[in-house]
């Protein structure tokens, strides 16, 4: 229990978020949406981290989350840059239409 909040609620919602993230990553075709879904997955992790941290009474959880968020930001900038530079060639970011390299 964290205050009045059972840890399981936290974990369940985190799990739900993670699964949804995976689902998005697998089912969407726009590279951007896929990336968004991946962000959701990381947030799921964050939620679990904070929850555990609180449950264990250590701040490490929050520390890790802090790092994760920073990293997520960095990833976002790089990723979007990649999208942009790719878009210059292909005029699309629909991954179904991006298969120059295959087989």
């Amino acid at each position, binding site marked *: 229990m*964290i*205050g*009045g*909040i*059972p840890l*399981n*609620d*936290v*974990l*369940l*919602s985190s*799990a739900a*978020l993670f*699964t*949804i*993230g*995976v*689902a*998005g990553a*697998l*089912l*969407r*075709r726009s590279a*951007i*949406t896929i990336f*968004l*879904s991946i*962000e*959701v997955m990381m*947030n799921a992790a964050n*939620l679990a981290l*904070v*929850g555990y*941290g*609180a449950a*264990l*009474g250590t*701040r490490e959880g*929050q*520390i890790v*989350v*802090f790092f994760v*968020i*920073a*990293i997520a*930001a*960095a*990833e*976002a*900038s*790089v990723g*979007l*840059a990649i*999208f*942009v*530079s790719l*878009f210059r060639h292909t005029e*699309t*970011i629909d991954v*179904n239409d991006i298969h120059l390299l295959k087989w």
Partner: protein
Amino acid sequence: MAGFPIDRVVFDLAAAVAVLFAGVMVVHHHPVKSVLALVVGFFALAICYVMLWAPFIAAIQVIVYGGAILVLFLFVLMLLNVGSETRLAGSRRPVQAVLSGLALLLFAGLLLGLLRHGGAAVPAGNQGPAAAEIAPLARLLFSDYLLPFEALSVLLLAALVGAFVLARRESNP
């Protein structure tokens, strides 16, 4: 503390909202709308963090995620003005969709099964709301976590340069 478990209700509501909007993000065809849905989801998450005695995290969640990252997404979307996905995902290759669906169900099932063992190994610490203080967090960051913190700085620098290299217009110097 007996009585109405206000904390829990609030947390669950917020979590529900977060999950809901994450779902919306996934199913919505138009990327922009997806982003906006996600903004809401992240705000809800921020609330969860508050409820979990992590106001600082909540703050950067709002600022960095909601404020920076998603906005960046929006910019890019505008820049490339990508329209909504014409067809629903995978309708061209049903295999992908079907397999993903099955795998997801399995995964979710296993995850739920696992979380039965979710209880923390260590009994809950007694510091309680004290965890919410930010100063010790900062101290930790610069003492105990100095190494990863510095590494993070390199990482950000790399990301910066990288983004610059990639997004620069024409290649000849």
